[in-house]
């Protein structure tokens, strides 16, 4: 018996694959995945969007940060099914027609990464901040990336890049 999709009535779906419709980087996406599939695994494995990284897989490092309805969250601790009807934005959705998003450009200009593995998450956290606050202070940028660990220690440059990107964007 096929599992029913989770609907407004709130019946149970799963434990096998079930349909879920969401929006990823502005495009509608239909997935058929079990309820325990995280958004992170759905992005990386089902949609091939590997810019979002899996580092701790338990909500402690921020490498998997994406925006859901405009807010930065950890995709490893979010179920894909919980994103039904929501807008998901990943690093691949930034920038247009081959030009970089101002935050991405500022990361290059300020050398805000070394190995680059935390970078997509850092970028998304700052993009999320700038949506709510277009003139953040260095302290506010710092707070915004508090949940994004960088093992190479690019932090001073990440903060500088965030502040510079905000200035440029205005």
């Amino acid at each position, binding site marked *: 018996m096929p599992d029913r999709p989770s609907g407004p009535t709130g019946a149970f779906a799963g434990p096998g694959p079930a349909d879920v419709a969401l929006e990823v980087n502005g495009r509608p996406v239909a997935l058929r995945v079990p309820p325990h599939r995280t958004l992170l695994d759905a992005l990386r*494995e089902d949609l091939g969007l590997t810019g979002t990284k899996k580092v701790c897989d338990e909500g402690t490092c921020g*490498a998997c940060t994406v925006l859901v309805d405009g807010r930065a969250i950890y995709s490893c601790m979010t179920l894909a099914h919980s994103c039904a009807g929501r807008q998901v934005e990943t*690093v691949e959705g930034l920038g247009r027609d081959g030009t970089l998003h101002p935050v991405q450009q500022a990361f290059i*200009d300020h050398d805000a990464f*070394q190995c680059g*593995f935390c970078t997509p998450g850092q970028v998304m956290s700052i993009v999320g901040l700038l949506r709510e606050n277009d003139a953040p202070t260095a302290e506010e940028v710092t707070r915004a990336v508090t949940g994004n660990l960088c*093992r190479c220690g690019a932090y001073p*440059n990440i903060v500088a890049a965030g502040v510079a990107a905000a200035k440029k964007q205005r």
Partner: protein
Amino acid sequence: MSRIVRTTVEIEGRMSDELALVDGKDLPGWTGETTIVGARTPRVDGAQRVTGRARYTHDLQLPGMLHARFLRSPHARARVDRVDASRALTAPGVRAVLHRFNAPKAAFRGEETIFRAEVRFVGDEVAAVCADTAEAADAALRLIEVDYEVLPHVVDLEDAIAEGAPRLEEKGNVSVSGSHSRGDAKRALEQAAIVVDRTYRTSTQLHNSLETHGAVAHWDGERLTVWESTQHVFGVRQGLQAALALPYSKLRVICDYMGGGFGSKGGIGKYTIVAALFARMTGAPVRCVLTREEENLAAGNRSATLQRVRVGWKRGRISGLEHLSWSNSGQGRWVADPTGPTNTLYDVKDLSTKSYRVVTNAGALSAFRAPGYLEGTFALECALDELADRAGVDPLELRRKHHARTDGVMKVRYTQKRLLECYDIGAEAIGWSKRKPGGTRGSTPQRRRGMGMASQIWFGGGGPPAYATVHLNPDGTAVVRSGTQEIGTGTRTILAQICAEELGVRVGDVRVEIGDTDAPYGPISAGSLTAASVGPAVRLAAADAREQLLGAASGLMEVRKTELRVEGGKIVSKGARKPIKEIFDELQNYTVIGKGSRHPNPAKVSLNTFGAHFVLLEVDTGTGEIFIEKIVAVHDIGRIVNPMTAASQVEGGVIQALGFALTEERVLDRRSGRVLNADLEEYKVPTVRDVPPIVVRFTDVPDTKANNLGVKGLGEPPIIPTAAAIANAIANATGARVRTTPMTPRRVLAALAERER
């Protein structure tokens, strides 16, 4: 013409005499001002990284790819008597299971097999499953039945040394791994007016590279291609050759982008072998990537140490220095020797050092950014400050006074040593003249303020073998090829700069292709040796390409070669500047290939890097919290190729050192041998808010004797002295000496309480 040279090769402080093949003649250093080398240059691979397009090993998704996962020992020590995988094999999606009773022999780190009969730490590999998905493989792991005969274990360094500890190796748990002595330390200490005799402890630090160790293997019937997150593609190839007994012609290893290694990714892991074995068995690509927990159990660590330093003082000078050290190597077979800096950092006549390896039932150590030197510098530099305090002299003055002009072990001079200049720059930048013995008042009634510093010595001279080619295209663009790796240090960018500088083209016209064993050999990206090893080879390759280009241009333009040069992508002759492309349009297609090899280092001199860190901080004496206000990091590494990435590297080193100094500590449960914080929650790497303002300075004087670029390495130096400088500043501020890292509120409070007793 190629020739064989004998040369001393140093990697991470370990010396060996090797033969190397070199080509032609080396170039003299650049005489005039360079325009590209030395300029702040944004990373050439930046756009790839900020867009998420950079392809890391983790990101590789090949058609039909299978997934391998390990079953790991839940016991710290046990005999594996029986493995029954029959239920796992019938689970959905499972393709194969390997364990000690069915796996083929595969040599790995001196053992014949990757699945031991006696598992020796929690996390040791017991079996591996290959399945259609990682989830199916995980589910199947739970169906494997294993009979263990549990054996007595010991995981803690001091427990393992203690009498009555379970004996883990026939020779016992403790063995001497290195020693050095000169003069008569014992007598000098006996005759000293003051003797400081202190014990220091450093905790196990976990690398926690954000990209965990992992490999994807694909056997196409002819050739095995392995993508691995590694610091050494050629090392991985060598490891696979040994494990699988395949000829080199059938092996290719690729590492395009990698998410951090910090020393832990120097060669293959069991995951590499397992991926390769399963790929051969199934004919499909196989991915084997560690989880965060596995990373922190079985992929290396910086050994915990117990160190005793005795240092004497007589008539205004150090009189005798003795340094004994014990390292918890876990199941590792070597020691990252902490006594290295003691042997060479200062001019001390009577000295004796000895280092011991202690075996325990914990995961093996691996190199971790300045292995041993960070730990040893903490003990040495704290002890020197304790001595300065007792002798009533300024700690910086004490260090100046004992400045070593020659290498005390090798008994030779340094090619260049500007440590005194580092002291001057750092003292000025931190305001050392304002330092008061006993510290000063802090910004709140319970805070005390203090300053501390520490010095650093490291290697970083690099050497052969390292090779590169520069391919020149008819449009004036160039491709650098070398089998080195980009581990986040900016290698692609500095190699592009060096090529562009020598060839006469723009950085944007150079593409750097690295991380592939189908390219000329490149050394391991470790030991701060990449810039000084691969860089000079790239310069020679670019020069070779330029000479060939000018030869051809001379013929086409009918101008003597000596009247031509290349500048900004144009061929310049008297009164004319023509883009390379225009001149070569007639030729349609051709390839100029310049070749370069790293020539030997100068003989009978020591090649080292030096630096000093200065710290200004406050200590909250009520809570034990440390508030660092400023860190000044000054380094002497010869010429700076890219001031932008160099500064980033120093900041990164300092920040990793902050973790070692203040927050990072692997916690083991002694009874079970389990790591309790194999995660990024309770294992606390610094966050953005843990980072104080960091001032980075370089002496930036080319070391002309070192190599044709005058460069030395920077990967390791900046992590070495920070922790000691912090401890010294805490002691200056409060009079309390914290002798154990990390210096957490708990330990600072304990030291403050001890001071009051």
